[in-house]
Structures are given as C-alpha cells and as structure tokens.
C-alpha cells in the first residue's frame, strides 16, 4: 500500500511535468481545437520525455553506485 501510494504520487508528478513541458513545446498559438499536428507533437514529446526520465534515472542511479563504491 505504501508502495502503491508512492507509485501514484510519482506517476502524478511525471504526468504534471510532462503535460506542462509538452504544452509549452507544442502549443505556441492555442487555436480552437488541438489540431492533428499539435497532437502528433504532444505524442512525440511524451515519448521523448519518458525516454529522458528513464535515461536520467539510470544515469543518476549508476553514478550513485559508483560514488558508494569509492567510499
């Protein structure tokens, strides 16, 4: 249950940041609909944001391990 709460909080933070970042990257002049080119941009942006999150997570994790081994 604690694990699940943390997972939910974490997913929420991810979704909030992703929405804000991708809105800023993809919608410069908000029109009367979210048109298909904007949707395509948001979809790509989400995938790149997930890639970045995972990459950062791995890079940070391996760095922490290296630092621990040095001590």
């Amino acid at each position, binding site marked *: 249950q604690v694990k699940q709460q943390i997972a939910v909080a*974490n997913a929420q933070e*991810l979704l909030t940041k*992703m*929405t804000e970042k991708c*809105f800023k990257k993809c*919608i410069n002049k*908000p029109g009367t609909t*979210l048109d298909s080119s904007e949707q395509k941009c*948001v979809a790509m942006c989400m995938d790149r944001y997930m890639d970045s999150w995972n990459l950062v997570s*791995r890079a940070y994790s391996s760095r922490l391990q290296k630092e621990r081994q040095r001590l």
Partner: protein
Amino acid sequence: PQLQQFIEIETQKQKFQFLVHGLTDICWELCIDKPSSRLDNKSEHCLKNCVERFIDCSNFVLNRFGKTQFAAATEEITFD
C-alpha cells in the same frame, strides 16, 4: 455528515482555485505581452483557447499514458 460534506466542498473549491492560479500563470505567459489599458480581443481569445487547449492537452496525455504505458511505466518507475 453535514460538516464532512461542507469540508469536502470547500476542499474542492480550494483545489479548483489552485488550478486556476496555475492555469493563469501558464496562459498569462503565453498570451500577455505588454499590459495595456484594457484586455484586447486577441489576448482574450488567446486566454480562452489556452485554457481549453491546456485541458485538451492534459486529457490527451492522461489517455495516451493510460493506454500504452501505465502498468509498465509504473512498475519501471517504481522498482527501477
């Protein structure tokens, strides 16, 4: 029970207002360049569309994330 309902409604209102503060922040930066003596039509349209498109964008992200990645991502994120 009445007290509880009262608190629930007030909490909802507060949540709503904090989302409005956040949305105003984002749409102000996008739509308002130099403050002028009145809110012109262009800025007004921009603000309205900004709110609508931000919610669209948020729904789009939520749906897409839900469909393709939720289970996988939650696991990956949590137990990485």
